[in-house]
């Protein structure tokens, strides 16, 4: 058997591209960018992480003098904090659910039907977010006193849902509008009732957008502090409202621990949503219309 060697591949594969000035500048810029990212985004987070486990920390030192889990014990053993976690985990999902029930049909109507006042409604939804929130809440509180809604679950729920209406309407409306009519018609042609078309085609195709809206609503509810404090305190303390008293009453390490706890659901949710939306059917779906 003859062994054929290709003389061209040998030398060619050995030649390297020389490092030009241009490419050096480019990589220097990339490095700079990464460093800035780390300092400004990861830096505070890192500091928070270290802080949560720090005992004494004298000023110029880069690391704490000693490490401890004491602050975590404080948080976990503190009854009030436990209740706050429970409250947050109760209100956030409930808010998403209620908001979805109210807003999704509206979103569908905005996307599919042209009714008088459609534009006005859409714009005014934004307007509710344009006002300073505190002003809105103070007015709301006055109303709530009259309706006996202060310090009630319903009162807090109303505040939370109000904060999510924009997300839950605009994003799903765009998602519904992006579902090609053809795909719905094809389902009708196949024999599906209007309801079935919605359940089998429109909703699944708009789902990524709806999930984004749900995640944003969840986070909005989870982070809502001003209105909750005004309407719910002291009967109902959630994690963010509890943060306020923590910062005032405890060493900063406890606040650090609490911040980390507060961030866990958000981060977990973002990661899950990210995977579902970018890795899933959305990217695929938009290849065909």
């Amino acid at each position, binding site marked *: 058997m003859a062994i054929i060697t290709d003389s061209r591949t040998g030398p060619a594969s050995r030649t390297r591209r020389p490092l030009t000035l241009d490419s050096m500048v480019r990589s220097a810029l990339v490095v700079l960018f990464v460093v800035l990212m780390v300092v400004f985004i990861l830096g505070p987070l890192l500091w928070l992480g270290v802080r949560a486990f720090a005992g004494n920390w004298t000023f110029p030192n880069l690391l704490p003098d000693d490490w401890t889990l004491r602050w975590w014990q404080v948080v976990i053993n503190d009854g009030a904090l436990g209740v706050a976690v429970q409250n947050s985990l109760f209100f956030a999902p409930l808010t998403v659910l209620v908001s979805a029930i109210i807003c999704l049909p509206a979103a569908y109507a905005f996307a599919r039907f042209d009714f008088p006042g459609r534009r006005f409604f859409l714009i005014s939804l934004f307007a509710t977010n344009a006002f300073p929130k505190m002003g809105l809440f103070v007015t709301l509180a006055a109303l709530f006193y009259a309706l006996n809604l202060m310090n009630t679950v319903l009162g807090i729920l109303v505040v939370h849902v109000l904060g999510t209406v924009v997300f839950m309407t605009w994003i799903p409306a765009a998602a519904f509008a992006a579902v*090609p009519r*053809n*795909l719905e*018609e*094809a*389902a*009708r*042609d*196949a*024999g*599906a*009732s209007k309801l*079935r078309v919605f359940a*089998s*085609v429109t909703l*699944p*195709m708009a789902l990524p957008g709806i999930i984004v809206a749900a995640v944003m609503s969840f986070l909005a509810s989870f982070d809502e502090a001003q209105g909750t404090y005004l309407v719910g305190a002291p009967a109902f303390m959630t994690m963010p409202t509890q943060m306020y008293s923590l910062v005032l009453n405890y060493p900063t390490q406890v606040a650090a621990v609490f911040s980390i706890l507060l961030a866990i659901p958000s981060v977990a949710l973002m990661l899950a949503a990210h995977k579902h939306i970018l890795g899933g*059917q959305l990217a*695929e*779906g*938009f*290849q*065909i*219309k």
Partner: protein
Amino acid sequence: MTIHEPLTEPPASTTEPGAAAGGGLTIRGLHKILGGRTIIDNLDLSVNEGELVSLLGPSGCGKTTTLRMIAGFLEPDAGSIEVEGQEVSHLGAENRPSAMVFQNYALWPHMTVAKNIGFPLKLRKMSKAEINDRVETVLELVSLLHHKDSKPARISGGEQQRVALARALVQEPKLLLLDEPLSNLDAKLRVKVREDIRKIQQELGITTVIVTHDQEEAMSMSDRIAVMNAGRIEQYSTPEALYARPETEFVATFIGSMNRVEGSLNNGLISAGGDILGIRPEDVILHDVPFDGALPATVERVVPRGHFQEVYLRRADAQLRSFVTGELMQPGQQTYAEIRKAMTFRDGRLVAESGAAR
């Protein structure tokens, strides 16, 4: 010089359409106004059972509008639509015995190929096993069994087209509707898929209406062609008849190619006059030597078209185009051109056909 054959060879139609008796599709007095304009104007059409009919016409003439009214996505302002003798115009799309293949296929991207095809059966409350059986049968028919579990976005355009066809066929519709089913495919694939569609349609004997603006597609697939223009049907006949005996100037121009000359033909010579003459390029015959009925002509331009050439000629009486096979002609070359056949149109309608000495 040789005589070139007509370019579009109509297929031997297998089933000569019989009288419309109950079966098939019957449309009467269909009328639709959209945006203040009459889009479909009192349209009548009857398609026999098992027949494949093309709606052929220029862009904007109302083909899609007609098809969407048949499918039930659009409500006609007037007129009746009967499928197998049953009036359907009051029914919603979901209750009509027709199935449609959309121009862009409209496959559901979140379902696999099998789920897409199985969906209509699921709606009919069939058992899982039966759905699976039928889906596999129809996938085999369009030779796509290997893509059963693929998502639509992962398969090629031609394959998507066949999935869309399979999704329609699995419903065993009484009427199959296709809106420009091949326009998103490349030229070669288009020829193959249209043969596939025709074969399957004949095997299953499904009454079929295809919308297209591609005359070659219509000519090669259809039992009959309805040529549409501005919301009306100009002529409804077999591909052969459409080409050989166009009833209007529009049809003659739209189907195939035509020399349009004002005047009348006398002994092979065109003399000025009020009528319109339509002369097919293949009816302009070139001779190397003087020939009875042929006039001297000069070649002005030659456009090679692959297996033939399009030759622009100047005769004493007119400028003509001719389709010629054989060795390439040269501009400036002298030849003798004979008009073997011409159609005469008056007010857009065919009034006479003259075949000169044959």
